[in-house]
């Protein structure tokens, strides 16, 4: 930043002896300290601050040391403010990317014979309402822990059911108690099924079986149609969404060929036919499904660790929304299953 013209001491005023250096040195000191401020802030206020600092020193209202210290303190505050702002900004696209990818990218990644552009557009329109972080508590004694969520755009022909896993319940802030969201996805010649207990609102045309599976097999005739297993995409693409950003604890994802295992350490194991949510830090060992590999390890050659997952601060809720497709067939269902640690 260039020094402002006319910033030398006012005529007739004498700086305090021993406290005010030459104007050139003052300008240099102010310039150096202003360089500590964020660029945007400096561009807007830098010249005014430089001018005022030099004026205060020249008038004897401040000393170079005091002015320098004040500027350094202010720079630290502004830096912290800018950093906090940039972090907030960074989280928003991370959430948007996750949700958008859940609704569109994964579904469109693999061509579906029966999928039309209309259905693809329907997939993109799947929306999940947010749930405040910390809305879920472990039922029973012990502190509440963050939960993980799986966002899966389900396809016709998948069956979503509770997987064998650690028994447990979660309690919402509303007082409602629900089982842990542990799910299996299997290929069936029928559209989706899900447990009622973890879904606040059943999709239209479904029949509730309290505490057990909800199947739309018994839904209104004409709305559902069998889907051949081979038309079901082989790859299930889950994502973990931890409740909080925990530095040093960001889970890593492992990429694999389509139709193979997909492992997120401390998070999720998925096969084309099965999906199990392993709650992180659950304190209880969960038997992985047959053929599964353990979290944190690679299954073999050809498997490579993926980039760390972004961990937005908000949770995705347990939501299941049918999106009507051609001939009234649900083209996509956004399912968010929650695992509680």
């Amino acid at each position, binding site marked *: 930043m260039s020094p402002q013209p*006319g910033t030398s001491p006012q005529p007739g005023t004498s700086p305090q002896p021993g406290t005010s250096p030459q104007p050139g040195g003052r300008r240099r000191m102010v310039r150096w300290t202003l360089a500590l401020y964020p660029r945007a802030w400096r561009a807007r206020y830098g010249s005014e*601050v430089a001018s*005022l600092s030099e004026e205060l020193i020249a008038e004897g209202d401040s000393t170079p040391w005091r002015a320098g210290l*004040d500027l350094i303190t*202010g720079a630290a505050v502004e830096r912290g403010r800018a950093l906090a702002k940039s972090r907030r900004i960074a989280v928003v696209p991370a959430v948007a990317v996750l949700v958008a990818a859940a609704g569109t990218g994964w579904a469109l990644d693999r061509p579906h014979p029966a999928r039309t552009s209309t259905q693809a557009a329907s997939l993109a329109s799947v929306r999940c309402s947010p749930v405040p972080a910390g809305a879920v508590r472990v039922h029973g004694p012990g502190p509440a822990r963050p939960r993980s969520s799986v966002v899966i755009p389900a396809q016709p022909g998948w069956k979503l059911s509770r997987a064998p896993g650690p028994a447990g319940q979660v309690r919402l802030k509303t007082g409602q108690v629900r089982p842990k969201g542990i799910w299996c996805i299997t290929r069936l010649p029928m559209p989706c099924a899900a447990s009622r207990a973890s879904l606040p609102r059943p999709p239209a045309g479904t029949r509730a079986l309290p505490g057990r599976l909800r199947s739309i097999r018994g839904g209104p005739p004409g709305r559902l149609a069998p889907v051949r297993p081979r038309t079901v995409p082989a790859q299930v693409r889950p994502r973990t969404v931890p409740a909080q950003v925990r530095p040093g604890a960001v889970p890593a994802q492992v990429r694999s060929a389509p139709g193979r295992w997909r492992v997120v350490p401390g998070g999720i194991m998925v096969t084309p036919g099965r999906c199990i949510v392993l709650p992180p830090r659950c304190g209880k060992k969960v038997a992985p499904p047959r053929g599964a590999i353990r979290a944190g390890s690679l299954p073999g050659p050809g498997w490579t660790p993926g980039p760390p997952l972004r961990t937005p601060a908000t949770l995705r809720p347990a939501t299941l929304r049918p999106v009507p497709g051609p001939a009234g067939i649900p083209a996509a269902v956004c399912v968010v299953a929650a695992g509680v640690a």
Partner: protein
Amino acid sequence: MTGDSLRGSSDRSILILTSLAGSPRHGYALIKDIQGFAGVTLGAGTLYGALAKLEQAGLVAALPADERRRPYQITEAGREHLRARLAESARIASIGLARIAAASS
């Protein structure tokens, strides 16, 4: 009101808004005015840190620069904010003074 009671960015904002409530002022005039009525000497970095926050919040607005000085003026929103804050402070002050008086008697 002493200088010790006027710490924190919120108090600095109130001091700046109070100073600007009378008329638009540039940085040096703000510092001198605040020094005069509150006995608090703000540094340039401190003053402009608070001014930047107030400007972003729409409570003050910058006027066209006059030579090398840029005056600032309080906005209507800033006036409302200042009025609300001062009223709240006055209410708390009256309660505190009443309790002190009751305890002394």
